[in-house]
């Protein structure tokens, strides 16, 4: 094949970069801004469509008002997601040119297909939002379905790339170049893809559900509690309340897969210094070189959870050279944050479900609504902590066991300037999003639907 004859010089050489940490932080910031918006892309269209479906079934104008107002929030958040997503695609080249230059042929397809998902989402979100009252009710509903589907396929594609970075396959390295490339097998034949996808997909519903509910819970504490607000709280909260206990099970599945495929990441998550049989879990505490200090030990729990055996052997950080280990405390605390918040969210969800099912009404205690106001932002913290666990836990590798992050980074100067600029711009974006959401919330309800 002619491709095989291409000279090996087309591989880019790693460059020195004094600001590798800043580059990583810049990437992390961009993800942290984008990922909560992705949750709305995954989950919110389905919620809006459900409410519109209620309207089509019942003819109750309240549902029409709710779906229409939510769709404005949806398009505003999508617009912000478009720009933060575009920034991420720029950063693939601006920050990590060696990563894309070496492995673009392996993982790039995922993003190319994701681009089409993004396209369909953008097209139909335009039709849906501008089509209120301009398309027939049925066709308007139908025009929203591709938005919901594209939100899912887009996240599938992006996560297929992340799963590949964590568990790379589908190529061989020859003189710094990827050869024997099989992109479909690399992205979709990857055993690491499915648990990550399901975990993120369920997280999308939890985050979007709790965040929307938190907004209306805040309103209730200030006396806004007509049927409109109750409906707008109950629907997303029911989804989140059902999804959060499920996430505990899915998270456990994630942990077992990581234990098999990335033992070093698991060791960092648990602060396990030495390979151990019957390994314990420590809650809280601080990792020092030798192990976790001041933590609350639960004997044998790690062996039991990760391998379902009392005395299973769990690989410790000592299995690899110190230079191949991730920063333990960052990973460990991110993980504990995620698990802690996730557990509390599941408890809150079960409380809500029990009250709804037994009393056939919404909870009445203001403490429940105060908890909800906290649960919304907390779910975002758990989401980001989860991504910190998987991404920082993969360090020092950008492609696990294949390419170091330091080999991937750009050789261009000026990273601190770019980082500072992006921080300022994203603070502005956050302020803008806060302003627009407030603005949309303040718009008066139509009189007909307020009852």
């Amino acid at each position, binding site marked *: 094949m*002619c491709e095989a004859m*291409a*000279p090996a010089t087309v591989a*880019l*050489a790693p460059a020195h970069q004094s600001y590798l940490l800043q580059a990583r932080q810049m990437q992390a910031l961009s993800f942290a801004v984008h990922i909560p918006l992705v949750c709305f892309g995954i989950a919110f269209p389905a919620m809006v469509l459900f409410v519109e479906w*209620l309207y089509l079934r019942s*003819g109750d104008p309240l549902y*029409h008002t709710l779906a229409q107002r939510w769709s*404005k929030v949806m398009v*505003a958040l*999508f*617009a912000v997601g*478009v*720009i933060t*997503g*575009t920034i991420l695609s720029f950063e693939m*080249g*601006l920050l990590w040119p060696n990563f894309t230059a*070496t492995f*673009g*042929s392996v993982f*790039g397809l995922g993003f190319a297909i994701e*681009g089409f998902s*993004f*396209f*369909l989402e953008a*097209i*139909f979100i335009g039709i849906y939002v*501008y089509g*209120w*009252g*301009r398309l027939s*009710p049925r066709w308007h509903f139908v025009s929203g379905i591709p938005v919901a589907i594209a939100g899912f396929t887009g996240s599938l594609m992006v996560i297929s790339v992340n799963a590949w970075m964590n568990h790379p396959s589908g190529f061989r390295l020859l003189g710094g170049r990827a050869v024997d*490339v099989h*992109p479909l097998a690399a992205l979709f034949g990857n055993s690491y893809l*499915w648990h990550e996808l399901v975990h993120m997909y369920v997280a999308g519903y939890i985050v979007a559900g709790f965040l929307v509910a938190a907004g209306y819970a805040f309103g209730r*504490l200030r006396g806004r*509690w007509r*049927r409109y607000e109750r409906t707008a709280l*109950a*629907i997303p909260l029911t*989804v989140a309340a059902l*999804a959060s206990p*499920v996430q505990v*099970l899915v998270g*456990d*599945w994630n942990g077992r897969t990581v234990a098999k495929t990335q033992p070093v990441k698991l060791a960092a998550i648990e602060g396990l210094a030495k390979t151990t049989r019957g390994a314990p879990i420590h809650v809280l505490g601080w990792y020092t070189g030798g192990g976790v200090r001041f933590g609350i030990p639960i004997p044998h729990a790690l062996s039991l959870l990760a391998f379902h055996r009392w005395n299973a052997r769990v690989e410790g950080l000592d299995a690899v050279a110190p230079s191949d280990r991730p920063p333990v405390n960052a990973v460990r605390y991110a993980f504990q944050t995620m698990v802690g918040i996730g557990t509390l969210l599941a408890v809150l969800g079960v409380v809500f479900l029990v009250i709804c099912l037994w009393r056939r*009404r919404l909870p009445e205690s*203001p403490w429940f*609504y105060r908890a909800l106001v906290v649960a919304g932002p907390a779910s975002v913290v758990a989401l980001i902590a989860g991504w910190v666990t998987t991404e920082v836990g993969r360090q020092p590798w950008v492609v696990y066991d294949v390419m170091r992050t330091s080999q991937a980074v*750009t050789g*261009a100067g*000026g990273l601190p300037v770019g980082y500072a600029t*992006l921080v300022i711009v994203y603070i502005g*974006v956050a302020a*803008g999003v806060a*302003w*627009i959401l407030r*603005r*949309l919330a303040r718009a008066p309800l139509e009189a007909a639907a307020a009852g």
Partner: protein
Amino acid sequence: MLLIDLPLILALAGLALYTVLAGADFGAGMWQLTAGGGADAQRIRNHAHESMAPVWEANHVWLVFVLTVMWTAYPSAFGSIASTLSIPLFIAAIGIIFRGGTYALQSGTSTPREVRAVDTTFAISSVLTPFALGAAVGGIASLRVPLGNAAGDLVTSWLNPTSILIGALAVAASAYLAAVYLSADAVRLGHPELVRAFRARALVAGVLAGLIAVAGLVVLHSDAHRLYNRLVDGPGLPALIVSIVAGAVALGLVWRGRFELARYAAAVAVAAIIAGWGLAQQPLVLVDLTIRQAAAPHDTLVVVVVAVLGGGVILFPSLGLLFALVLRGGFDPGQAGAGVATAPAPAPKAVIASSAAGLSGRVAVACLIAGIGLLTVAEAGWAHAVGVVSLLAFVVAGFVVVRPAEVAREPDEDSSTRCGA
């Protein structure tokens, strides 16, 4: 046509579409910026916004398309370009944040004062982004980007005569395209004063863009001689001729007030410049890298081409639907309510019968138990798959059981809007 060229042709086609679609969006931002004060200026700003709002997100995804195809099919070229040209690309990225932010904010602004504040604050990015992207293209076209991680000069690779020329051309062409499109939209909306305003703008910007293009040949002659030779006397010549002819035809159509046709002629003139660049530069992608050397392995090229063509089969009818709705005026102001906004069924009824909810309860419990067993206890991959499906079914069935819309209905406390706290 070889497999190694095909993704590049698709990427350039994407770039041309980005230029003629999103370029017009940036151009609209420039006209908002330069509208001045007073009621007339406000009408110009509103018109520029309302014409673009339904389509801007879709227009901007073309850039993401170009980036993804480039890094998949020509990864080493992409890495070299992105690292050497990191400054203009970062400026463009920041500009895109601001421009997109304008639309995100405007979906919630209602008073004209707010709209104007948002427009003016961010319209500056409408000049910045096309210039920066044009300057980056100038760096590639004048072969100032070598293979390697930031191997070229970080400054002169995009601050040079060719880059400044192409940046300026991108700005002028964006303004021109926007004025032509907005004229056509104003005709459809029946606003003669807006038609006059944008016709004048289109003529000025069109002549300016033409002058920059002609002056550009002089600049290319001295600064990017290979490109110049292959453009005026080589593979790029046909595209150059098409661009000149289409540009002249478009100006004539604008002069005569035939804006709907001018829309397409102007777009062809701009797209032909990109085609001419591609034709003139091949087979080089970078100064020391040919397309053949840059191309990804065979399997990748095949799947990316199949994915793009397959995606196109879904994409183009969808885009056609969006543009048909926009261009036929379906989304114009005042159209709301012309369709069917009435409730389809007057009598509210229970959405889901109680018996269905009872059954769903048993299904939900069964799914949850099955899910726990298959996902958490079992080890096999197939068991996990079934377990996940069971748990998702549990969520759906549980949702049916809870019936949140019914729960929110009772007890009805409509008489007092204040409670709790």
